[in-house]
Each structure stands twice: as structure tokens, then as C-alpha cells.
């Protein structure tokens, strides 16, 4: 497959007064055209940092230690700043976490999106741009006449849609959606996720969804990446991962949260708390909280290993594949 996005051994630190925060550590993944990747993990696990790295929007106190990011075959960080600025919005767009605040309150929503189009397509006239915005509004389900309204006249769900319309404005080949529905109620969340998926299918666009909610990721992703403390601990096809998680943390995440599915069951707790990334634990970063940790886990970092087609896990003792008999998951719930 032709990979649209490739992230290779990417390591990034933030310099703070407390020391270097090892926010992203040796992360490798790729994303094909038309595919959707779901990055799931808790706050501070580095998922937003990866998004910002791809967008080349890292703050001044960040430091890329190693690794490269390729977008459509081009190395993002070897490009000149101005050249990349042209790619932003046209090739890759982002829906920010605080989408509600991403709109400028003193301009109408329509004019803000028009501006994005005009900036990236100098050939387009103002009228073309407005027509395009009308189309976009239609796509995301906002009535066309709301174009000339101000953000405060929009409801929360509608603002979110407007921000999605803005991300779509220059028909990028990749959209990164960072917690796109976290602040919304379930019914609105459901509608917006469905709309985004429909747009993706129609336009053959790639998506990266970032969320702390594993259920949201399950619904919209072809590929799921699980992050813990700056590491990509498991990545693979969504069906495989949800059928049988291989990494103990993935397993913990899935069983830590109640569901309305099936019978009411007891929840598995992950003991302890996520580590301070200034001083991450030696070896596997998850080992202090892991029920299956061995001596090896505490000394040397486990490398990512393939356990199935396109499915890799960074763990010395991953759970066995579904076919093999040993069922350690039963031990966990007991």
C-alpha cells in the first residue's frame, strides 16, 4: 500500500524547569491513503504531541531527538518552514481539542473559512470561495444561511461541525482530529462521528482520530494505536486489537471501563498511576503497573515485535493469539 504518512522512530522531548519531559519516545507507524488510525491513551501519553509533530506545530520548548515524519513522501522536517505552511490545510489539516475556541468570535463563521481557502488558493475568487463554503456547510450539515452568523450564535455541536468544515476547506488528504467530540453529548457525538466517517469514505481521505475513549476509537478506526507514557505500546488492525488485545495495558484499558454491552461485569483496575515522564521507569514504562511483569521488563525496554499481520506489540510477554489455548486473561479477571 502507498503510505500517506510515515512516522519513523520519532522521539521528542519538552524542556521544562523540572527537566526533560520524554513525551514521545521512539514511535513508528504508517498510515495508508483512505485509512483511519485511532490513537488512544490517557492524558499526557503523548498522543497530542504526535499530532502536533505531524502538523509541525510543536511549541518552542520542544526538541526532536530523533526520527522523521514523511507526509506524501516528503520529509516534513527537512522542508523549509514556508513550504510546509503551504502544505498545512492543503495536505494535512487538524481539528483541535478545544474546537469550541478555535473560531474567532469577532468574524462570521463563513468568512473565517473563506479566508482559509483564499489564503491557500490564491487563484480562487472570493465568490468561488464562498460557494465552496456553502458546499462544505451542506456536507457537514449546517444550514447554508448560517454562514453569516457569528460563532456565539452556534450551539456546541454546530461549532464542532464548523471546525470540521474548516478542516475540509482545502480538501486535505489527511485530517487529524484531536478529541473531536469530547465536550459533546453522546447523541451529538454520534452524529458528528457518523458524518466524519461518511465524508472520509466519500473522499478517500485519511484520518487520525485521537481520543481517550476506547469506544469512540473502536467505532471509527481501521487501525488502532495504543499509547502509554510516550510509547506506542500496541498498534494493529482494529478488529484484531479489540478481539484480543496483546499488550497488558491495552487489555487493562478495555476492561477498566464499564459498558452497556452484555452482562454487567466487574471491572479490572490498573494499579498505580501513569509515570512522571521526566523520570520514566527503566525498561518497559508500563512494568510498575503490570501484573505480568518479569525481571526483564524492569531493565531493558521491550522492542516492538510483530505478532500478526500489521500488528505489533512492545511487550516481552504479550497475550497469546486467540487461537492458542493459554488464556491468561481469565487470570486477570479472577
Amino acid at each position, binding site marked *: 500500500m502507498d503510505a500517506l504518512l510515515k512516522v519513523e522512530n520519532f522521539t521528542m522531548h519538552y524542556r521544562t524547569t523540572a527537566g526533560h519531559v520524554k513525551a514521545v519516545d521512539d514511535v513508528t507507524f504508517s498510515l495508508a491513503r483512505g485509512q483511519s488510525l485511532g490513537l488512544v491513551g*490517557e*492524558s499526557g501519553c503523548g498522543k497530542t504531541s504526535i499530532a502536533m509533530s505531524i502538523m509541525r506545530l510543536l511549541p518552542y520548548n520542544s526538541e526532536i531527538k530523533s526520527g522523521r515524519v514523511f507526509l506524501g513522501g516528503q520529509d516534513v522536517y527537512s522542508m523549509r518552514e514556508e513550504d510546509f505552511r503551504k502544505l498545512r490545510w492543503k495536505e494535512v489539516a487538524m481539528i483541535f481539542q478545544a474546537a469550541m475556541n478555535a473560531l474567532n468570535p469577532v468574524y462570521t463563521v463563513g468568512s473565517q473559512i473563506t479566508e482559509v481557502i483564499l489564503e491557500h488558493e490564491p487563484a480562487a475568487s472570493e465568490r468561488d470561495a464562498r460557494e465552496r463554503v456553502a458546499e462544505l456547510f451542506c456536507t457537514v450539515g449546517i444550514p447554508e444561511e448560517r454562514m453569516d452568523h457569528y460563532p456565539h450564535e452556534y*450551539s456546541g*455541536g454546530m461549532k464542532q461541525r464548523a471546525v470540521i468544515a474548516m478542516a475540509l476547506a482545502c480538501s486535505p488528504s489527511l485530517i487529524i482530529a484531536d478529541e473531536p467530540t469530547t465536550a459533546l*453529548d*453522546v*447523541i*451529538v*457525538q*454520534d*452524529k458528528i*462521528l*457518523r458524518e466524519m466517517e461518511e465524508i472520509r469514505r466519500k473522499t478517500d481521505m485519511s484520518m487520525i482520530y485521537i481520543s*481517550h*475513549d*476506547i*469506544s*469512540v476509537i*473502536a*467505532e471509527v*478506526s481501521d487501525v488502532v494505536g495504543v499509547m502509554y507514557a510516550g510509547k506506542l505500546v500496541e498498534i494493529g488492525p*482494529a*478488529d484484531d486489537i*479489540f*478481539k484480543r488485545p496483546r499488550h497488558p495495558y491495552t487489555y*487493562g*484499558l*478495555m476492561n*477498566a*471501563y*464499564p*459498558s*452497556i*454491552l452484555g452482562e*454487567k461485569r466487574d*471491572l*479490572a*483496575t*490498573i494499579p498505580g*498511576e*501513569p509515570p512522571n515522564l521526566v523520570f520514566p521507569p527503566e525498561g518497559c514504562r508500563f512494568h510498575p*503497573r503490570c501484573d505480568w511483569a518479569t525481571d526483564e521488563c524492569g531493565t531493558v525496554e521491550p522492542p516492538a515485535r510483530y505478532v500478526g499481520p500489521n500488528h505489533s506489540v512492545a511487550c516481552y510477554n504479550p497475550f497469546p493469539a486467540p487461537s492458542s489455548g493459554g488464556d491468561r486473561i481469565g487470570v486477570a479477571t479472577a
Partner: protein
Amino acid sequence: MALLQPDKACEPIVVVRGLTKHFLVGRGFFRKERAWLHAVDDVSFEIARGEVLGLVGESGCGKTTTGRMLVKLTDPTAGCILIDNEDVAAIGGQGMREFRQTVQMIFQDPYESLDPRMTVFDIISEPLNVNHIGTLVNREERVAYMLSRVGITPPDMFFFRFPHELSGGQRQRVAIARALVVNPKFIVADEPTSMLDVSIRTGVMKLLAELQEDFGMSYLYITHDLAVARYLCDRIAVMYLGKIVEMAGAEEVIKNPLHPYTQALISAVPLPDPAIRRDVPNIRGGVSKPIDPPPICRFHPRCPAARSICSDRDYPDLAEVSPGHLVACHILVAR
């Protein structure tokens, strides 16, 4: 449901009748008419001793306002609340002191609900302090006990820490210890786990369930998350725009929702299984605000099953359609 006292076992700890809260909105300088937001409108329910009632709904449905009225942080416009046979509206003076020991609240945001300038000991002993309970030595013992009960050990290591030195999970545990330190009979928990990270959240949820069992308290558990409500609650009440639309046992609400709104809400919950394709929730339009609403069913503009009787008649009362399962819907009740 443990520790029911035999003589009081039958009577509920909380009785709410016709609870209503209207907020004045949009009274502009140039506008003559006043508009009222009907945040909570004619809500009635009971909570048995040792029971956990979940109050579920989307943001702005009035669930938090209901909770705040139960702990006397907001005064109701109309209706009555009886807690442990006391009329909450009539409480004052010495009665207030007893009321504060009977009813406590756990807040949503553990980063905001602890005073940043107080130590853990001061925070947890505050309810004892202001109600003049026990001597300093007693309080120290009590606080240490509560800290160990909420899983913060060793307690004396944490006595003189400030909230900013604790993690989110620890803060919420401290907030829980503060609520429980006076041995309350009833606790309003306002989304206590929604701000916590997934791996921390489970521990706090389990702790809440465990403490409820051990201390035999009752909770009103306010949440937007049906799965959490299912896990923690005995019964669930679903609110929509200030009204309770459905109330039944937790499993019954999840497995057999009757009200069209509950059905839509449940079908919109994302599921952690990519193999399942959910149906599109059967609901139209978006939520509006209940500002001076007409006295008809508030859900009918969005209801897929709405008929003429829904807009012709006054709003439907909660009626029992099967044992313990109450629904406010003309169509379902008529059936």
C-alpha cells in the same frame, strides 16, 4: 444494600416531590418581559436507604441543579425535599448543623473542589471543624482513618501535603474522604469520575461502590454516562430538559428502555467493539433550552413516535408501565 435499620428500613431517606427550579434569564434593560429557564420542572423521586439512584442526562438537562437543591446549595422555586424525614427548606440554626452531617456532596472537578491553600488534613477535617465535632486528637484519628479507607496510605504522610502535590485520582479520593468524614447518610455525587483518566477512574468508581456498601449510605449519582450509571446504580432516572422521562432499575433501563429519548440515548453510546454496527439513534433535531416552554411533552418535537396527543395534552406524568418501571409518555401509557 446493606445495614438497613429495621425500624426505618421501609421509609426512604430522600423524598422529592414536585421539585422545581426556574432561573431568570434575559431580563435586559430594554426588554420588558422576563424569561424563565425551567431548569428543573416538577421532578419527584424517592431514594431508599442504602440505595444508589443514578440521575442521567445530557448537559443542561437539570441534573446538577437537582443535586445542588438536595444539598441546599440552591433553593428550589417550588416543591419539597424531605431528607431523613426533615423538610430541607425549613432547616436552619442547629438543624442545619445536623443536616450537614446527614447530607454531603462530592464534586466533579477534583482540581477545583479542594482549596489550593489548605493541607489535606485541613480539607478533610473541615466538616468536623466547622460543626465542632470532636477534639483535635479525635479529628486526627478520624482523618487518618478516612484517608486509609479511601486508599491513601500511609495517612500521616499525606496530612500536610497540598492539593497541588497530589495526582488527580488522589485529589478525588481526598474529596471523597472529606464528604464521608462526618458519616453522612446520603451523598450527592456529581460526576465524580468524569474528569479522571481511564486507568484512575475505575479505582475511584470501585471505591465509591465499596464505601457505599460498607457505610450503608445512599447516593444520588449524577452522570452523563449510562455505562457508569449501570455499573454503580440500583436504579436510573433519565432526565430531559428538566423533567424525568423514565425511571427504573438500572439493568431494566439499559436492556429495556421504553421512552423514545432513553432509547435514542442508549443507541448513541459508542461501543468498544468494532464488529458491532449500531443503528442510527432515532431522534430528530437538537437540544433546545427550556425557556418558558409550553406545558406539553418536552421531547415531542424530537420524538420519532410523536402523535397529535403529544402536543394536545399537558405534559405526561411519570406512570408505572410495569412493576418499578416509570415512564412519562402519553403514547406508552395509553398502550
